[in-house]
Structure formats: structure tokens, C-alpha cells
């Protein structure tokens, strides 16, 4: 066989493929049900894959130049004086995806900013609750935001966590618990055996024993242990306050607290049907903290808060599979009491990802439904600011390329409308990522910033997007502070 013969062979295969590309229907050939045959288009044959995806290199490279002093200067309106070596100030400023407000009313978040600013003079502990779907699991996004805010405004600890976690929670803190905990969730598929709606602010509660046993029956012991994570920020590790939220214990139970494996406190907790809080002040956080519970019947545990005595606490509340439509479904009195006890000043709601692949084309229903959740939160926690974070880009495949799911922008718009119609602020994560077809660029970045499902961020990507969000947030804070300063100096 001569090389010319081989050449002829390959040319023939190419010719056949090219002919196929000309005559094959562009959107494929539907055969039986969902099965669709696809073939190259001429365009595909000649365009390299990378050219289809959003170019995010400038978005990523500019992040390192955006510093607090730049954000201050932008807030002050003095950017013309800024000279940043190696970067263009105007393009840096335009690379910050700003927080959007209803009717351009930039005072929407001021109540929160006021509370944050007052922290320097008050000894309060205020709280921001970051609710989201699986996108924020394992403290992704929240952890960086928490650390930034705590470094700036004071505060420590990982915030409110469930007694038993769904997954090996280990980024901010290593949490392990005994195997006898049962977890009940107030979102997704509900357990039909549960006849009440007391799920608490984490939308889930845990029990360690049946709830209807009597004192003469066997006792059960359960435990939960928190230890330092090597991945965590130092602020997160340094909590000095531990609070356990519970109710509905028919029988008293024994509660013990161990710090570095030494028993530091033990108490018999009396029976109650109301929301109660067990609290400990800790001088130093230690390497590990273990709580044990012993009793015949278990209370409902709504969470454990590990915070500082003052400053800001930021909770990570990931609700796998949720679209954020559960607030109205839960026991309102319990939620209200918990929000009050936790002194919540802001809710960050980051949902929508689970609604994108819903098969719907119209999202008006979702918009209204989501708006009703915000209104309910406002009712339960008057005075708290609400900030909605829109969906991230999500890809579907079109032949061999990844394209933005056609529903992403619709869901983003629905969330923005819901926020604006209820007087809440909105941050467009999709735009911040680079907009259309940006997810593949995050997935294919080196090192990768998003997971191979083209939906979730990887830890590094989550840090990047969290930094972008923090930049947008703190820029607004500076603007508020600027304004507040002027008012104080020119009363």
C-alpha cells in the first residue's frame, strides 16, 4: 500500500463525512421517542470548540486588582486619581457586577449597612442567613463571604449548623455525629409521617430517639462533635459561644458538653413544648467540642449556633434540590422566634438552579411564588434586608458543544422581578460569571473552577464568585458609609 492509496482512503472518508454534513438536517433526525441522530454541521467542522464559549480571562485576571482601596475610591467617586499598575481602572470598575435595586433605590440595603456600621460601637451579635440550593453546599461561597465580613466587622464562628449533616461537612469545620440521628426536612419530598411543620430556620430538624417514649423505657445516647478543619479560616475556628435550639421534649434529657474531651458542663434539661435555647459561653474554642444528649425521648433539634459574642455571624444553609419555596410552608411561630433569638439582619437567597431544568417555558408562576416567600420572610423578621442572588450559568449540550440552558435567563429574570416587586436587592451571578456560555469556560479553566456537571462551582470557583459578590456588596457598603459620614459631619 502506497501513501497515495492511504491519502485516497482518507480523502474518501472525508468526502463522505462532508457530504453527510451538507445533507443531514441541522437539528438532527428524530427517530423513535427521545432518540435523535445528530451529525456535524459544516460550521462545526471549521470552528474550534473554544471559540464558542465566553472569554472569562479578563474577568478572572481583573479580580486580583480589585482591592478595598479601589472600592473605596469608587464609592467616593475619586477614581480619576487612581493609577493601578498593570490594569485599566475603567475596565476594572466596569468588571464589578453591581448589586441592583428596585426603582434604582440604592437605600434598600441601608438597614443592614447601618447594623454593620454600628457594630464598631455596640456589643451586638447580628446575623446574615445565606440560604441556597446545592450550589452552596459545604460552605461554598458563604465561607469566604463570612470570613471577609468577620475580618472587617468582627465576629467569629461558622454560624448555625444542623445537628446532623447530609454530607461530610468539612470545609469550615469537621462535624461528625453518632449514627442514630434522624434528619427530617421541610423542603423537597416531605416525610408523610410528620404531621407538623416545625422545621425551624434551617428547614430541617433532627432527633436521636422516638419522640413518644416514656421515662421508664430505654434511654438513647447521641452525640455531635465539632473539630477544627485545616481548610478553614482562623475566624471561623474561633467561636466563643455555643447555642442549641430545641423544643418538644416530652421527657427531660441529659445534656453534656465536652471541650477537648474534658467534661465542662452537664445538665438535666426539663421537658418543654416551646422553643428553648441551651447556651454556653466558651473562653477559648479549643480543638474540639462535643455535645452529648441522653434520654428516653428526643426533642426536636433545630440547629447549633457556633458564634462569637459580638460582630457578625453568617450562616450557610444549603437545601439540596430546593427552589426556595418552603418558607411559607413551615411553622411560622417557630421561625419567627428563632429569627428573633438569632437577631437576623439580612437574608441572602440564592435559588433558581433547580427550576432551570424544570421543562417549563414560562416562569411567571415561579416569580410570584418566590415573591410570596420574600414577603413572608419580611413578615417573620421585620426590618431584615433581603438580597436575592440570581442563578449561575448552566449548560446543556447542543450536539458536541455546551450552551447556556435557554431557561437560565428566564429564571434569572423571574428572580430579579420577584426581588424588585418586594423591594429587595438583586445580584446577577450569571452576568458576573461572564453571561451566556460562560459555564464551559469555568469548567475548562485551568485549574478548573466549576464541576463537570456544568452546574456547580468547584471550591476555587466558589471562592472566585464569592469574592466577586463580596466586592459588589462592600462597594455598596462604602457608598452607604460615605453618605452616613457626610450626614454626621454636616448635620
Amino acid at each position, binding site marked *: *500500500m502506497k501513501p497515495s492509496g492511504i491519502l485516497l*482512503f482518507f480523502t474518501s472518508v472525508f468526502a463522505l463525512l462532508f457530504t453527510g454534513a451538507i445533507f443531514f438536517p441541522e437539528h438532527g433526525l428524530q427517530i423513535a421517542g427521545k432518540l435523535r441522530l445528530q451529525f456535524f454541521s459544516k460550521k462545526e467542522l471549521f470552528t474550534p470548540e473554544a471559540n464558542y464559549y465566553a472569554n472569562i480571562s479578563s474577568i478572572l485576571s481583573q479580580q486580583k486588582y480589585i482591592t478595598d482601596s479601589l472600592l473605596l475610591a469608587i464609592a467616593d467617586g475619586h477614581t480619576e486619581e487612581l493609577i493601578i499598575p498593570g490594569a485599566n481602572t475603567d475596565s476594572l470598575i466596569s468588571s464589578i457586577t453591581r448589586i441592583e435595586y428596585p426603582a434604582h433605590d440604592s437605600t434598600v440595603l441601608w438597614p443592614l449597612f447601618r447594623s454593620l456600621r454600628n457594630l464598631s460601637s455596640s456589643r451586638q451579635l447580628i446575623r446574615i442567613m445565606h440560604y441556597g440550593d*446545592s450550589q452552596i453546599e459545604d460552605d461554598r461561597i458563604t465561607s469566604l463571604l463570612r470570613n471577609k465580613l468577620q475580618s472587617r466587622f468582627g465576629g467569629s464562628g461558622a454560624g448555625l449548623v444542623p445537628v446532623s449533616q447530609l454530607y*461530610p461537612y468539612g470545609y469550615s469545620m469537621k462535624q461528625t455525629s453518632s449514627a442514630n440521628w434522624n434528619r427530617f426536612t421541610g423542603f423537597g419530598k416531605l416525610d408523610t409521617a410528620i404531621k407538623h411543620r416545625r422545621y425551624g430556620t434551617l428547614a430541617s430538624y433532627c432527633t436521636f430517639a422516638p419522640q413518644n417514649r416514656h421515662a421508664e423505657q430505654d434511654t438513647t445516647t447521641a452525640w455531635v462533635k465539632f473539630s477544627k478543619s485545616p481548610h478553614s479560616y482562623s475566624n471561623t475556628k474561633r467561636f466563643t459561644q455555643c447555642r442549641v435550639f430545641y423544643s418538644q421534649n416530652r421527657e427531660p434529657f441529659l445534656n453534656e458538653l465536652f471541650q477537648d474531651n474534658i467534661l465542662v458542663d452537664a445538665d438535666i434539661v426539663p421537658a418543654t413544648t416551646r422553643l428553648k435555647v441551651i447556651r454556653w459561653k466558651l473562653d477559648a474554642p479549643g480543638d474540639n467540642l462535643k455535645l452529648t444528649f441522653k434520654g428516653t425521648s428526643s426533642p426536636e433539634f433545630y440547629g447549633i449556633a457556633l458564634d462569637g459574642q459580638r460582630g457578625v455571624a453568617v450562616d450557610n444553609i444549603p437545601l439540596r434540590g430546593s427552589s426556595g419555596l418552603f418558607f411559607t410552608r413551615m411553622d411560622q411561630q417557630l421561625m419567627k422566634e428563632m429569627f428573633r433569638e438569632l437577631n437576623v439582619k439580612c437574608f441572602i437567597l440564592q435559588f433558581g438552579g433547580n427550576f432551570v431544568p424544570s421543562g417549563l417555558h414560562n416562569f411567571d408562576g415561579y416569580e410570584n411564588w418566590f415573591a410570596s416567600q420574600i414577603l413572608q420572610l419580611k413578615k417573620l423578621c421585620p426590618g431584615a434586608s433581603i438580597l436575592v442572588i440570581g442563578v449561575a450559568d448552566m449548560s446543556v449540550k447542543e450536539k458536541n458543544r455546551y450552551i447556556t440552558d435557554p431557561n437560565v435567563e428566564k429564571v434569572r429574570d423571574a428572580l430579579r422581578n420577584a426581588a424588585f416587586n418586594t423591594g429587595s436587592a438583586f445580584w446577577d451571578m450569571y452576568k458576573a460569571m461572564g453571561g451566556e456560555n460562560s459555564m464551559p469556560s469555568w469548567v475548562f479553566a485551568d485549574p478548573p473552577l466549576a464541576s*463537570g*456537571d456544568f452546574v456547580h462551582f*468547584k471550591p476555587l470557583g466558589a471562592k472566585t464568585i464569592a469574592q466577586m459578590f463580596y466586592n459588589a456588596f462592600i462597594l455598596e457598603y462604602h457608598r452607604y458609609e460615605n453618605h452616613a459620614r457626610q450626614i454626621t459631619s454636616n448635620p
Partner: protein
Amino acid sequence: MPDYLKQIFLFNQDAPLIFTQMYFWGFFLVVLLFYSFLYKSKPVRNTYLWLVSMFFYYKTGGLFLFILVFCTLADFYIGHAIYRSRTKSGKKGWLALSLASTLLILAFFKYDIFFTETINSLFNTHFHAVNHAASWSNIFLGTRFDIGKLLPPVGISFFTFQTISYTVDVYRGEIKPVDRLTDYGFFVSFFPQLVAGPIVRASQFIPQIYRDYSLSKEEFGQALFMILKGLIKKLFIGDFIAVNFVDRVFSNPGSYTGFENLMGLYGYSLQVYCDFSGYTDIATGLALLMGFRLPRNFNSPYKAKNVGDFWKRWHISLSSWLKDYLYIPMGGNRSASVFTYISLSLVLAFVVLLSGNFLLIPLFSGIILVTGILMYFFPAVRTSVHNNINLMITMLIGGLWHGASWMFVIWGGLNGLGVVIYKFWKKISPWETSDHWASDVLKIFITFNFITFTRIWFRAESMKGTTDLLNQVLFQFGWSAVPEMILAYRNVFVIMILGYILHWLSGSIKEKSMKWFTAIPVYQKVIVSTFVVFVIYQSVSADLQPFIYFRF
């Protein structure tokens, strides 16, 4: 320069030239076109193939081409210098220069970040690993590489191993140095095997450079069959399960059930084989079409009956390279040599630096001292240490060769232990000589599962990833959701089962299908090949597996 010309001729880091890109086949067509005029004259042919290989390398690795050219030039002239040296010490000196320069380049690009970070943490300095080639290119060529990131030049491990084998073989007197630079350049950079192997030995390849072009009809059929087989492995199986399942599980193991993690691990074992051996199949087929025979690199590795057997079947050209240029020179399974202790110190130094804990030095010294004393007083200990130490070191270096991280140390160490334990076990195993099918199945099953288990440390993205994965498999298996998960991932699982069945299929069926393909007329080969591409495209264009997080 117009954009389309830029796309064709200039390096673009987002679009490297790889076998699975349409562009590559256009490139190959053009190469063939000129080849059909030039193939008769050997010097012209070799020079031509060297030049197109350099273009191929430039399109894949950009300006790292200079590294390739440097290695080529250096070792070509050093090879001659070794050959001409009259004295043993002269030969040794030149060989040392060649090894030092090649290994320094390899170390610089593979371990720079590790060394920089180690120095920073030891001496509290703040050095940054800077990619000088990239910053040079940014300044003079207007490119926009990230200079903070030092990606090793594409295929550096492969071509440096080839040049080392060349100079060592010349030193040992096993081959004569190549006369023409172009011939040597061609040997080092022949494009089908340049970036992912197989690693070609000078003694196997160089004689082919001086032979006339020849390709029988059977070989033509075999070459095409290899290419199609490789494309199916890489694209239809490997990429499909990676994109739709394996990658996502490994990027967040804690978010998936133990069942999904376990399936992800089995999926990865298949994927890594399909990717790697598929790529090698294509390389072998392409080389054969141009008249060059590359060595076999994979031999149904998951049919191995013990860990040692596995390493004789997996990436054979690397395993045999390590055997001939590391394991045997250290003394093989007979005794430890000075080279053994140098290698051992290097590995231990790496481990100490990785841990950043200098207390390990007295610990290691203590272990070595105790072992030394035991070896002195107990001949049995001495024999087993001598028989196995070189093997363990080879496996550990094989691990570290993949990168400076704990995970590769563990991976290499586990594989070394696997081989050593088997060596002891086979002495007492009652089934060692059994040829009963059940005994074979059991041996294959155990070996396959052990190899798959060690891959946790090879594939996981971090140490936390490995513990998350193990934690999920052991404690969060999600039994209740298994039927639901199988149903949801049915496409992925069907392809996985198909892949494993094809792998474990008897060799004679594969042989028969190759014979059939080789025998059919050329026009039918055209039709079959087009059809295979069409089928592969169905897998490439299949809808993305929607993300589902099972609650458990």
C-alpha cells in the same frame, strides 16, 4: 494575518492539536499529501516528518518547542561525544551531563511549584514560581499566558525519557549514535507518539529510520482498525462516562452517595484505560500508516492476575523503561546498590519536604538503622530487603514522577506493596499454579479491585477528596436509593458495562473482527470507517446527563 490563517498556523492554548479534534485529521491529510511524494527518499522523508512533527508540537505546546529542540540538540551531540570518548571516565562524564541537563529540565517544569513552596515555607521567603518561557512569549509575541502558572511542556516526560534511553544505550554500547541530526530529531519528536507515548526506544526505532517505506495491505487494515478502535475507546466510552459521570463525582465526592462514588471509581478505572490506551491505539495506527512500527503499550491490563502482572500489561513502554533504566541498574531483585541508596535518599527527602516536618529525618534514620541491624543479624531479613527494596523505590519514583504530592506517594507506595505482598503470597498460596477458571476469575477480580482502589489517590482532586470518597462509600452508601440511581444513570452504566465486557472479551473475538476488517475491500473500509465516525458522533453529541443529587 487573517484569522483563519492564524487559526491554522498559530498556537492557541485553548485549541491544542489532539487526535480527537477534526483539525488534526485535516493536518494529517495534508501531511499525507506531501508524504506521498516524499516517502521514497529516506533523508527527505525523515526531515519532512521531523519538520511536521515540530509544527505539530508547536500547535500543541506553543513555544515549549524550544525545550524540545534544546533536548534534541543537546543529546544528539552528547551522544556523539560519548561514542567518541576513549576513556570510561570520559564516557561517564558526558552521560552525567546529558542526564543532569535532561533531568534538571524535567524537574524544573514538573516540580518547580513544589520546590518554590517548600523553600518559601522553610526559609520564610516569598519567591513565586514564574513561567519564564510564558513571560518571554508575552513580551515578545504578545501572547497572554498566565506567568504565575507553570504548566510543564506537553509530553516532556515522554520525549525526555526517549532521549535518556538513547544516551544510556549509546553509553552502554548497545547502539551507535545517529549520523544525521534530522534523523535524531525525527526519532525524538515523531508526532503520533510525541505527547502521550508509547515511549519509543532508540534500539527499536532507529533501525526503522533507515528502512524503506513498506506497508502491506494487512498492515493497512490493522492500522485503520487500531485508529477506529482508539477513537471508540477515547470518545465513545472514555469521554462519555467522564463528562456525564466520573468528573462530576470526583469534583465533589462529598455531595454524592457512596454508591455513586464507588461507581465513579469503577467508571474512572475504565475511563483512564480507554483514554490512554485509545490514544496509544490511534498513535500506533497513524505511525503504521506512515510505515513505522511502535511497540505495544497495553495488553488487556484488567486481565492481570496479580499486581506485578498488571504493570507488565499497563503502559508497557513506561514500565519497561523504568525497569531497564532504574530498577535493573539499582540491582533489580538481587541486591541493593549505591544507586539504590541514592534513590532511597531522594525519595525520603521528597517525603520530608512534602510533609514539611523535619522530625521525619530522625524517624527515617531510626527505621533505616533498625532495618540495617536486623539485616546484619538475620540473613532472611537481608534477603527480603534486598529482593524488594528496588521494587518499592521504583514504584515510589513512578508515583512521584506523576507529580510532587502525597497522593502520588501513596499511590506508588500501595502499588509497590501490592507487588511485594504478592511475591510473598505466591510462595504459600495453594492456588498459585491452579488453572481452574474460578481461580483465574478470583485472581483477576482481586487484582482489578486493588488497582481500582489505589486509583482513589491517583484521581481525587485533593487529600480531602480521598477521605470524602472513602467516607461516603463506607458510611453513606445510600442503599435505599440504589435502584433510583441506576435508573437515572442508566446510559452511563450501560456504556460502562459495555466497555468492561469488551475489555474482558476473549482475545479471539477481537482478533476475528480485526481479520474481518482487514479482509474487506477498501471501499467497504471507507463505508465502515465513516459509519464508525457517525456512531461516535452520537455519543459525543448526546445530551448532557442532567445533574441529580440523590437524597440519602
